């Protein structure tokens, strides 16, 4: 694998690379590119929500024939929320987050020269790239991109008569997602095999950093649940193109009865959420893993309750596959099932609470190094708690009845998985940037980035709970049809202003990121004084990661401020001293 003699060309080094470090950077940059599109879309539809009749030049400039005099059409509004959701959930927070950091850290932190299969890893990235391209192309379809919501419930997503976006736009969405799933499966299988087989001498499973545990378990959830979404998408393609009736029955639209008979949209909901809910944890667990590592390093303290953290990750992963029905309490499924799903859903609160308490205890009596990555990690714990707690309302079938599909849900999941996961991603970028690019990011810009984002995120999503509790449904193009909602208009303006503030703050990040790649201060080998193996590799990337032998591991990764050691960190490669407690 470590054939140093092999001369690399531009193409094998920067494009069709099989080196996990390069693939990781490719994932990150593609993820950032998709993230810019996704966030920009949210800016556009927030303008519409706050000022529904107002004309905006920016809308005129970007939405072409989907707008009239700077006011967007209802169809494109629905398309924007649909694609915003799809891009953020899958392309940014699944591929961008997991793809970047699993690829970068798994080999480096377990002590492997590369992924188990560098070739499959490369294929995985290029499939992801292809699916991104198709998704972007779908934005330019004449009738508009997919617009049935990111959950693409049929019949709306199956019938172009019902909404124009369900024509070619929806076809491209499905093709893109099918390729995306293939990419995601190849990646996940590679992660699992690598973690199980390629750990260096002494790297027992109980000595793995929590990042690796999180990526490993995330990959398992992905392998279990993504194929189900693929089958759901395939059946939908069949219904759309080949006249089958898996999801459709008894439909009368635009004056004619369609031939479909015997299917049920509820089947699609089951299949979709069998992935859809685990997906929340596919997005969140890597962010939590990153946070564990960063909070411990920057607190100069061991992560509190290492084994409990592993146990919680496994418990959350297991439970995540048996809770999907809480998205369907009012779908018409048997109320008894609702009872079962309420029970399993509220169980998830226990390991989640354990994790939150453990993070807080890790901070206690620490010596906190306030690097930008640390700020984002603390921010993550805050939004994880704020967003997680309202899950007690939504996970309870009885309470879900009246807030289901309102803005209360939007506020809940944006805090708990959207903002939390994106904080985890930012934390990871600030922390491992020196490992990726051999240079450092600017910390002052990092501080500005964090504080503006933190204020904006709560400014957007805290008030949003209240308009949900006022009974306002999500995905409404405008609230002007209901005098009942006239009093939420002001709240929506406040939310939009904070959203624009938060969106603009990301420019600071983009500038910092791209300028630092070329102009950042040269990194030292172990800038954060961290214990894990990735900081024992040379700053300049080499194929195979370590120039000589792969170092052996003698201890767990969290010996920070351990009594009996001079420094406040002890690298995993340091042998135990005589009589030292291995922790």
């Amino acid at each position, binding site marked *: 694998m470590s054939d140093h003699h092999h001369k690399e060309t531009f193409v094998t080094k920067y494009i069709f690379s099989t080196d996990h470090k390069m693939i990781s950077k490719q994932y990150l940059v593609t993820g950032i590119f998709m993230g810019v599109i996704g966030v920009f879309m949210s800016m556009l539809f927030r303008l519409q929500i706050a000022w529904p009749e107002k004309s905006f030049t920016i809308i005129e400039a970007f939405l072409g024939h989907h707008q009239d005099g700077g006011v967007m059409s209802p169809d494109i509004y629905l398309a924007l929320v649909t694609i915003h959701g799809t891009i953020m959930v899958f392309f940014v927070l699944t591929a961008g987050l997991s793809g970047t950091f699993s690829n970068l850290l798994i080999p480096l932190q377990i002590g492997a020269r590369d992924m188990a299969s560098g070739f499959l890893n490369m294929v995985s990235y290029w499939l992801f790239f292809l699916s991104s391209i198709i998704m972007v192309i779908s934005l330019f379809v004449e009738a508009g991109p997919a617009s049935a919501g990111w959950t693409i419930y049929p019949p709306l997503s199956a019938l172009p008569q019902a909404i124009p976006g369900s024509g070619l736009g929806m076809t491209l969405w499905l093709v893109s997602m099918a390729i995306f799933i293939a990419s995601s499966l190849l990646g996940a299988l590679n992660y699992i095999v690598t973690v199980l087989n390629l750990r260096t001498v002494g790297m027992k499973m109980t000595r793995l950093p929590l990042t690796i545990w999180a990526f490993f378990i995330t990959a398992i959830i992905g392998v279990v649940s993504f194929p189900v979404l693929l089958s759901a998408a395939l059946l939908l393609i069949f219904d759309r193109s080949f006249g089958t009736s898996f999801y459709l029955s008894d439909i009368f639209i635009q004056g004619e009865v369609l031939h479909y008979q015997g299917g049920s949209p509820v089947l699609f909901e089951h299949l979709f959420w069998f992935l859809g809910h685990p997906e929340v944890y596919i997005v969140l667990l890597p962010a939590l893993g990153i946070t564990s590592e960063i909070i411990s390093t920057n607190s100069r303290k061991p992560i509190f309750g290492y084994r409990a953290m592993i146990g919680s990750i496994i418990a959350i992963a297991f439970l995540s596959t048996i809770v999907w029905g809480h998205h369907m309490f009012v779908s018409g499924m048997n109320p008894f099932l609702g009872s079962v799903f309420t029970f399993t859903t509220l169980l998830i609160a226990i390991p989640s609470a354990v994790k939150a308490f453990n993070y807080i205890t890790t901070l206690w009596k620490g010596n906190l190094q306030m690097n930008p990555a640390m700020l984002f990690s603390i921010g993550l714990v805050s939004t994880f708690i704020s967003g997680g707690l309202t899950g007690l309302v939504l996970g309870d079938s009885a309470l879900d009845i009246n807030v289901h599909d309102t803005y209360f849900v939007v506020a809940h999941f944006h805090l708990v998985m959207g903002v939390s996961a994106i904080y985890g991603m930012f934390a990871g970028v600030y922390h491992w940037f020196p490992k990726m690019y051999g240079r450092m990011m600017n910390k002052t810009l990092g501080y500005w980035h964090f504080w503006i984002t933190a204020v904006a995120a709560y400014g957007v999503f805290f008030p949003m709970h209240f308009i949900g509790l006022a*009974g306002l449904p999500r995905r409404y193009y405008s609230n002007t049809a209901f005098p*009942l909602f006239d009093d939420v208009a002001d709240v929506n303006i406040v939310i939009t202003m904070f959203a624009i503030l938060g969106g603009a703050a990301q420019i600071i990040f983009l500038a910092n990121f791209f300028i630092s790649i070329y102009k950042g201060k040269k990194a030292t080998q172990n800038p954060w004084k961290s214990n894990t193996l990735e900081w024992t590799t040379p700053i300049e990337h080499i194929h195979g990661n370590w120039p000589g032998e792969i170092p052996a591991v003698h201890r767990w990764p969290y010996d920070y401020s351990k009594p009996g050691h001079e420094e406040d960190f002890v690298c995993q490669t340091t042998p135990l001293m005589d009589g030292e407690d291995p922790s």
Partner: protein
Amino acid sequence: MTALLYILLTIVVAVAIWQIASILNLKSVIATEKDNNTQGILFAAFGIFFYGLMIFSFVKYSSILLPDSASLEGERYDTLYMVTMLLILVVQAITQFLLFYFAFKYRGVKGRKALFYADSHKLELIWTVIPAVVLAGLVLYGLSVWIDVMDASDAEDPLIVEVYAKQFQWEARYAGEDNELGLANVRNIKGINTMGVDMTDKNALDDVPTRELHLPKGRKVIFKFRSQDVLHSAYMPHFRAQMNCVPGMVTQFAFTPSMTTEEMRLNEKTITKVEGINKIRAEKGEDPYEFDYLLLCNKICGASHYNMQMKIIVEEESEFNSWLNSQKTMAQVVQ
């Protein structure tokens, strides 16, 4: 408001440019003791902002919330909601305080060594068992309400009403004298028979199709939902009621209205809310609004999803009966 937005934007852009210029100062990459101090204090300040925002929202936005429940089942819902919300707020207040306080208190100081504290089975047991016990209570309470709301089998003499959804309007059908809905299927839709009622079914003849939903106070209403095209969701927030309308199947939800429209208009919270709305409407030069119950669509269904509504009128049973008797039956409408 827009002016403020532009001012905010300008400030952000200005700060961004100024800061990006400072990136030339390559030395600032790792937090120094001074940074630890500043950022720790900022976390304390952020904690204050956080609690301020929470309190502000609760005070300022309480007037936009839904008024008291207009159904008997909804009253149980509201109590469960209050209990859950109280619990959430207590946990939120404590944990966020600890988080921001620790971030402030333990901000890094040169030369200080952190406490090596990796594990405590006692602590972990405490914060596994306490949430487990609290959640067990919450699950049991929640499920008792859920079963109560969803099980309408023991209702005495309930009113059966079909609510029918299509892009982008609602229709309704009352079961009539026999209190049994006639069969229906989209394949029977023809001309004035817009809900596809099967006129060969004798139960169908006395059914009453309407474009407005009237409900009697104090009598359990069992709703049967159908949709003719895509998924819709029948959302009646004032009654704490919601159920999806699914093409190809009939779904169900039931509640007992407990306040007539007139009574709800005189409810204190409704009056406050309506006053707030009318103040806004007056500023815009629009007609004053009078409160009415609503059925609205809460599942994305197409371009006019945002304007798919039907008025609901709750009245005393005698008024309801005379209204229903004045409506034409299916037999009268179709023939």
